[in-house]
């Protein structure tokens, strides 16, 4: 890459999350030096000591909004960023913590914490797009390394990243996996889940957990009917749809139908 080229200024921000998605950036290993050469990593607490100051060409936001502080901070980051990208299940659908949505938050706080008076939290865990305009969402819990690199490469070239919204099943068949649902009767969310992981779990003869959230035109009702035919009870189906993307409307609504 020509030295004279403008290196976009990147900020990496963490909201309520486990850090896994932003650590995926460090996991890029072989490509990490190329990434560091192509973009100016200006703020990334997991990797650098720099402070959060100024304007960003590119902001990667991990995590969901669960406190009033976070709800204010995301507005500030948005105002200082040209392009804002939500990374992972928490940022794009609320994450596993969205299980608290609709539940009694204060009851949880009283049960878990010795001094509940110090805890200040919202009643919901919500995706970044509920608060500000998001330019692109990269799915996954955590995001897939190859998709993160594609995202960076595409952003540098000013093109749309190639992250197809079709089912995991396409990746599964292209990998030559045997369908765990058809051959073993294993419950699998693959047919309603967004591609991206390369069908990781079915590749190890496990059912898909839906880490990448709902695919386009996900027919969760037809899948749930089939799971019931295979012997899954309402509680099992409800739990299957209530994990890392429990806040994604297609999964949340299917889970509700089985409460």
């Amino acid at each position, binding site marked *: 890459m020509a030295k004279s080229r403008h290196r976009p200024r990147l900020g990496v921000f963490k909201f309520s999350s486990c850090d896994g998605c932003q650590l995926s950036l460090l996991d890029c290993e072989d490509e990490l030096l190329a990434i560091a050469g192509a973009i100016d990593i200006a703020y990334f607490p997991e990797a650098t000591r720099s402070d959060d100051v100024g304007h960003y060409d590119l902001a990667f936001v991990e995590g969901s909004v669960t406190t009033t502080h976070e709800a204010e901070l995301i507005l500030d980051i948005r105002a200082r960023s040209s392009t804002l990208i939500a990374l992972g299940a928490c940022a794009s659908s609320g994450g596993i913590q969205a299980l608290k949505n609709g539940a009694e938050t204060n009851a949880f706080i009283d049960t878990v914490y010795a001094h509940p008076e110090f805890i200040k939290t919202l009643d919901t865990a919500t995706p970044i797009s509920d608060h500000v305009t998001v330019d692109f969402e990269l799915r996954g819990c955590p995001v897939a390394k190859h998709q993160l690199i594609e995202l960076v490469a595409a952003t540098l070239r000013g093109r749309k990243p190639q992250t197809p*919204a079709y089912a995991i*099943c396409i990746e599964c068949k292209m990998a030559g996996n*045997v369908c765990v649902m058809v*051959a*073993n009767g294993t419950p699998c969310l693959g*047919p309603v889940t967004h591609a991206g992981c390369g069908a990781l779990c079915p590749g190890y003869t496990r059912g898909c957990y839906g880490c990448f959230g709902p695919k386009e*035109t996900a027919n969760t009702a037809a899948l749930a009917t089939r799971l019931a035919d295979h012997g899954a009870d309402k509680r099992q189906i409800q739990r299957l749809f209530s994990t890392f993307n429990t806040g994604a409307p297609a999964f949340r609504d299917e889970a509700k139908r089985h409460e």
Partner: protein
Amino acid sequence: MLVETDSCNSPFVLDANGLGRLIASLHASGHRVLGPTRRDNAVVYDEVRSTSDLPRGWVDEQAGGHYRLKREGEAYFGYTIGPTAWKSFLHPPKQSLWSTKTGNGQTEIRPASISDEKLAFLGVRACELAAIAVQDKVFLDGAYRDPHYAARRANLFIIAVNCGRAASTCFCSSMGTGPKAREGYDLALTEFITSEDVAFLAVAGSKEGAEMLSTLPTRPATQADIDASTEATAQAESQINRRIDTSGLSPLLKENPDHPRWNDVASRCLNCANCTMVCPTCFCTKVEEVSDLDGVETSRVQSWASCFTSDFSYIHGGAVRTTPKARYRQWMTHKLATWVDQFGTSGCVGCGRCITWCPVGIDITEEAAAIRSGNKGG
């Protein structure tokens, strides 16, 4: 390729040892031998090093959205078909087409190399021979010949194995493709049980097949051998109880785009694309440009695509087929009707993979029958 002489077509009998010799001979002549193996509770096509890799004594039980293997008998080829289609090797899921490298103000374009690998397919069923013939029309005929497919196809040695069993999802006989292999093979084997072991009635279908057969330990077939193999094929045929009524099917589907059954099937369809992935004739691809981080190297990669995705029908402004209903109707109408206009043959060979490997068990034969009967999809 086909040699229609008596000497070529007279049957011989090969025993299990001879089958092992056949595999070894193919390796010796530089072929990569692919055939049935047992992996993850299914029979999948993969590398075959010797007869011990074959799923001897395993048979499959299939239904809509259901596949199980169980032990039964001693046959090497007692299973019917599994999830793998031979297109996985002739028309692989990903194929690099060309790449570019930019530097010093110049862009160099490099075409992807054409593989000279010699493949041998062991255990190709009659429906699968028909499917390969369908894809030959797609990739080799007409103005846009696929050089990668052509190279693999030219170096391919095909050993067909006639079915001795049929799965409940099989309907080759109504599509006119099986269960007995008629053409398109170098060697055809029919497995039958003898007093000591299993044996194979072997018939050559090409000069290369006849030459191969002449190097193997065989004996001329007796009438009893021929009768035993005929009986094995007849048994498979008698077990087929699914069918598609193909009479007038093409106009029927084309004239019924608003049939209520399309809504009914759309309510069950996951639009997950499994049917198109396992279909041995589905050939659609997309191309993507893949660039590296510093923008120096870019490659154009072709990969399998499916008409069950919204990207597939995306044109300027949006997708043409936004609903699962439109996508299922497009797939089935193309497969059974407009395919005939396009390629002069049905796109369906009756293998039943789309029925078995549909996670919710949607059955193309039932859907076609429902459109015909005027079933309102209740």
